[in-house]
């Protein structure tokens, strides 16, 4: 597939799938009216944790001058909300931002005030939490803790999650990164059983979960595994700069090193590149949030055939 190059007139083009060449020719003489590139300057503030800003359903959450995730932007109406206190590395789900430990808070958008009933976990997490808006997975030094946001009961699984890599969660499916003997592996909780998903000598990391799919980044590319069918899929790529894998509705997006700089690539053929580094992709359906040379951009994509399983 063709790689995007920024036009001199600063219009950006997204080339999609195996029809990319035909599409490029078709679009060459026409403005890219079917693609919207929306700068989000309110989310440009450099985050202390570069894995943000993030999409949260109808919202995007990001950082202000403090470097904490302390603001939300409704993508349709452009309404802005300040999140009381904010957090450095919260869990993010559609309409929900949650920090269980030091930066304790639960923000249910559009409210910017933290929910006073938010579960507080005294033990320090070793990575940002994962949440789907109802449940939370938190990596601890000696296990994985699972709980619901509206309950006080927490279940701890005997596991050895690796620090810094957040676990991933969607409904009942939970996955996390472990670290042993100098390499990282992927494990998942399927039907209350911990199962190894990827445990080769390679460095499998940056796990993500969407529906029944578990995705991760490895030394040779991006992989997914279907927890129900066992089917595996791989996209050979150089994703070594990736800080976080985006996985939504079967479409994975990652940072791709092109030999000179970093572009954003997705498993359905969408790619965003150009001069400088394009980083931190977060994809939800037809919306792709990227940090393009330090500026937050929302790409609203035209409809494209999915190459997911």
């Amino acid at each position, binding site marked *: 597939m063709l790689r995007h190059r920024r036009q001199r007139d600063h219009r950006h083009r997204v080339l999609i799938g195996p029809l990319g060449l035909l599409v490029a020719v078709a679009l060459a003489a026409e403005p890219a009216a079917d693609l919207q590139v929306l700068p989000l300057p309110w989310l440009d503030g450099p985050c202390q944790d570069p894995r943000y800003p993030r999409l949260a359903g109808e919202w995007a959450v990001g950082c202000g001058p403090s470097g904490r995730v302390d603001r939300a932007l409704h993508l349709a109406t452009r309404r802005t909300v300040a999140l009381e206190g904010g957090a450095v590395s919260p869990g993010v789900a559609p309409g929900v931002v949650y920090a269980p430990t030091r930066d304790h808070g639960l923000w249910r958008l559009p409210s910017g005030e933290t929910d006073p009933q938010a579960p507080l976990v005294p033990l320090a997490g070793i990575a940002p939490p994962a949440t789907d808006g109802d449940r939370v997975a938190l990596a601890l030094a000696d296990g994985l803790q699972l709980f619901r946001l509206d309950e006080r009961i927490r279940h701890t699984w005997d596991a050895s999650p690796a620090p*810094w890599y957040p676990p991933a969660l969607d409904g009942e499916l939970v996955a996390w990164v472990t670290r042993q003997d*100098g390499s990282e592996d992927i494990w998942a909780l399927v039907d209350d059983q911990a199962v190894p998903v990827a445990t080769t000598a390679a460095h499998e990391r940056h796990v993500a979960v969407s529906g029944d799919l578990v995705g991760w980044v490895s030394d040779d590319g991006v992989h997914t595994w279907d927890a129900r069918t066992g089917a595996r899929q791989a996209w050979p790529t150089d994703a*070594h700069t990736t800080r976080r894998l985006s996985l939504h509705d079967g479409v994975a997006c990652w940072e791709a090193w092109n030999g000179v700089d970093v572009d954003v690539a997705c498993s359905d053929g969408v790619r965003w590149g150009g001069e400088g580094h394009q980083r931190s992709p977060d994809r939800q359906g037809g919306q792709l949030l990227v940090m393009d040379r330090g500026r937050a951009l929302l790409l609203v994509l035209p409809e494209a055939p999915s190459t997911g399983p």
Partner: protein
Amino acid sequence: MTRALLGLLVVTVGLTAAVLQEGQPWTSEAAVRAVRGLCGALLWGASATGLGGALLARPGRPVGAIAAGACGLGVFGLILLPVVGLGLLGPVSLGVLLVLGLSGWVRRPTLLLPQTSIVVVLLLAAWSVPGLLDALSPPVDTDEVYQHLALPRLMWEHGGLVGGFLQPDGSRPLPVHMVWTAASWAGGEAAPKLLHLLWAIALALKVGDLAQRRAGPEAGALAVALLLGSYTFVRELGLAYNNLPAALWVLLALDAALALEPDDTGGLGSPRGRLALFAGMALACKYTSAGAVLGVFLVAWHRLGWARVGTMAVLTATALAWVVPWWLRNAAEGLHPLFPYLGWPEDVPLTFMFPEKYGVGRAPLDFLWLPWNATVAARTDTFAFLGRITPAALALAPVAVLAGFRRRDPVLLAALVAGAAWAAGPHWLRYLLPAAPVLVVCAADGVATLGRLGRSGAWMVWWLGLPANLGPWLADVVDRAPAAVGAEARDELLARRVHGYGAVRWVNEHTPQDAPVALLFAWPTLYVDRPSLLGSVEDHIPSRYLMLRHGPGALAHLQSLGVTHVLANRVRFLKKAYPFLSDEAFETAFEAPARDLEQALLADGVLVYEEGRFGVWRIDGR
């Protein structure tokens, strides 16, 4: 005097209450750490005093106790150079040195305690409380973490000296760091800091002693108060630095110079011998003491007679003999004798330090206003002198100068030379510390010429300056006091006070035990439990050198040295901190190396951990 005593009692109680944590008794671990550290510090202090007392002893004459201790520590600092250089650092060699020093007591030297007053004792007692808590808290100070305590750890780890382009700090003269290395063996992490605190107390007592002998008890008290009322001095009380040790050696050299007689016959314990000894130790400890040492030598020359050129040449050569071994060591390793200050390769545009960065300007008018600006415009948290001194020093300066001129006092000459030497260099107030004893003794001489109103006025100005000078220091000590007594976990304190500690912890837990880790634009060498390279000094000199020297091949060069992981800080240099550099020069020297490293890590490294600006990258071939 009664009112002053009452005031000091109030200060003592207030300081004690301010720093002690009510309801937070010492934990057993903290108590054991403190006792062990104190024992280690006292043991080496006693050994040094025994050695120094034996070396300085003269028939029928007492030896100053502080002079004996300082002499012994300086001798240890020099003896340990070949010991560590030959890879003999260990319990046996240090045990032998310890016993050697203690055996000096067999000669039963007659030690003379310094003259002091109840005011000085109260001052030191009060200030020692926060100083002790400072010394007992885990090290978080940047200079301790990258150099003063990191170098001893590196020497223990390597079993020998470190230095060169990958460890430039290790190529400076390190007599005090040798002593810290020995102290840490005997008393653990706290021992060097506690030994430094004792050293600082000895300095204050000696300052009071000299000032009192020259101008009376109140002059002695005020001289000590000028030191203890200055932030730049007190903040180093509980830190294992080398400025105050240099200051004590300078002061002892001045004391010897003032005792010189033209017919002095020499010998190590004679004034002539002590002058050369302590001047040399000060120079070997800190090159920033050179101005003060020059001033002291002028005092000596004045005492001996200006015609005694040959004698002064011999004294100078003898003093330099304490520094030359460190120069020879550098030369033997193919480095410039004054590396890391000089001797960087010509194809690498690297300047070790920019004097223009410090202070508030270097125009002729700025030099004229320097005493005022250094007192009034100084900030503890910016490059505007990076410190603070008591306004009483500025208030007494004209009095001291006038009194000194009237008496034709050579100490005034020494003070002026020391001050001028500091003014010629970077206007960083802590660089004035080695000269501080000379300056405050001069100021105290002037106090003696004031009437009662004048002296009261001087004390009043001192009191008024206390909040601004002690406030920042006490706030910092109070923040760390819980960790000192064990009420706060060590890791918690380090996590919130040491930049990059989370990344350091990851390195310690997840990297191969024997594989070197490169610290790029990062300071916390002390806490990396792996062989480490580079680290930082001044404006991140080692990392900038690596990038300027090797360019895109920097990571490959590190890999060739066996490095598997890099701990890197996403540093951003601010042009406004370097207004004296052209945009091009700033880009070449600062922005380009940082940018090139970021690009190199993106291309050839795999990020495996990140916390804030600090990331750990795997570079073992992806």
